[in-house]
């Protein structure tokens, strides 16, 4: 049986490397002081005082403020011994000691500034970790709540006897599923900001074709999706639009047909384009999305407006229906918002 790490074991594991690096850093700093002092002695009157900052920085950053101070004083003493013998010979006894004390003080100030910076960095890291943990928890709760809503819809649908009524609940569950998958993708990426909509579109199309292909119809799905990055808000809305278009094609495009083809395309550009095309029976004569469409198309029009995109619904030149959504490639600021959406049909 595989054993799971206990909290105490984890704590011990996390502290051991820190202790080793602290000792190693101190040893390295002392060695550096010795090497610089030797060079300082060899070079005679040429002062190498600035080079002692290296061991001071190493000691402070990796072993803490006290060790930094110790190495600073040690460096000043080394500098005094290595560089100041001639001055003593001149009879100016106090000046080298005074200079060494000033040097030790300078190293001390560097130590203090560095340790303050290190503490600030550690605090920032802690805050980022806490925020990431909170965000993870929020995503977790969102998905659990989506599961509960989906379950409630399923339980409610059980009481219905009319298959058409049940289908409405199933569609709602599909929409929830689509949103949940986006949360999953965002969470898995670890970025919590942008996600690849192409991957989501592919997964959603495959899922919907698996569950909504009309009985007796052999349906081929072709997905050509460029990677297109976007924020969660846009992705959720665009995902719901794709969900409606795919469901619409699956529900109405292949009635009484034994075979068909559904094509989904996502092309990166400016604007980006998302196209859902079926080779079914096409739009009914006199179709007007603004006046004679069902809830699905009404939702598509509303959501398209919401993300400042344009929609084009038309009969495919070869066969069937083709719907294209043109959406901006960069997030729009409030000043760039269009007052009215453009609509083609």
């Amino acid at each position: 049986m595989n054993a799971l790490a206990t909290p105490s074991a984890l704590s011990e594991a996390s502290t051991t490397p820190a202790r080793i690096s602290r000792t190693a850093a101190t040893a390295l700093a002392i060695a550096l002081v010795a090497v610089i002092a030797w060079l300082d002695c060899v070079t005679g009157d040429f002062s190498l005082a600035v080079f002692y900052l290296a061991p001071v920085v190493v000691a402070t950053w990796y072993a803490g403020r006290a060790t930094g101070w110790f190495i600073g004083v040690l460096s000043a003493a080394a500098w005094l011994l290595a560089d100041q013998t001639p001055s003593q010979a001149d009879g100016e006894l106090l000046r080298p000691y005074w200079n060494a004390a000033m040097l030790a003080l300078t190293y001390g100030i560097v130590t203090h500034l560095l340790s303050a910076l290190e503490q600030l960095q550690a605090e920032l890291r802690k805050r980022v970790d806490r925020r990431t943990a909170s965000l993870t928890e929020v995503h977790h709760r969102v998905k659990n709540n989506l599961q509960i809503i989906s379950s409630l819809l399923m339980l409610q649908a059980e009481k219905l006897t009319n298959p058409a009524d049940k289908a409405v609940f199933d569609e709602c569950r599909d929409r929830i599923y689509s949103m949940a998958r986006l949360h999953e993708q965002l969470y898995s990426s670890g970025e919590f900001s942008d996600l690849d909509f192409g991957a989501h579109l592919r997964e959603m199309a495959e899922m919907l074709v698996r569950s909504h292909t009309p009985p007796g119809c052999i349906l081929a799905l072709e997905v050509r999706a460029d990677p297109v990055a976007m924020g969660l808000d846009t992705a959720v809305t665009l995902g719901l639009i794709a969900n409606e278009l795919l469901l619409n094609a699956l529900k109405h495009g292949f009635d009484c047909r034994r075979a068909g083809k559904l094509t989904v395309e996502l092309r990166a550009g400016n604007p980006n384009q998302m196209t859902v095309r079926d080779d079914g029976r096409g739009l009914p004569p006199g179709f007007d999305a603004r006046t004679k469409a069902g809830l699905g198309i009404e939702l598509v029009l509303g959501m398209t407006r919401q993300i400042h995109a344009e929609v084009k619904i038309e009969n495919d030149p070869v066969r069937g229906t083709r719907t294209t959504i043109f959406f901006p490639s960069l997030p729009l600021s409030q000043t760039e918002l269009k007052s009215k959406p453009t609509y083609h049909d």
Partner: protein
Amino acid sequence: MTNARILIVEDEAITVSALKRELVSLGYKVTATASATDEALNAVELHKPDLVLMDITLAGGVNGIVAALAIRGNFHVPVVFLTAHADDRTMERAVNAGAFGYVLKPFSGAGLKAAIETALHKHQTEMESRRVS
């Protein structure tokens, strides 16, 4: 493998109800449900299910993984995890606990069936190879 007997371990009552109905509609039999690890262990001992569908996060912690370790070690019953998120760390622990698969929340009927069938087949193959050796 339809008619397989499944134990559901999940602490969210609404999700349990939906799972029960979905599993029954897929042709499985739900032998029992449990909402905590100790309850799950007792239910496995009592009902001897073919498979356990287990929520990873029970009562605020990842106790499902601990329960799965015990179930796999003591009863040799395959466990499929039900989880809201498939992050690398949790999945690594799930794999170490001997998980036979996982289903992401919110679940779909097709996803549930695929995960259960794969787990049952894998378990059967494992048991047969164990018998041969």
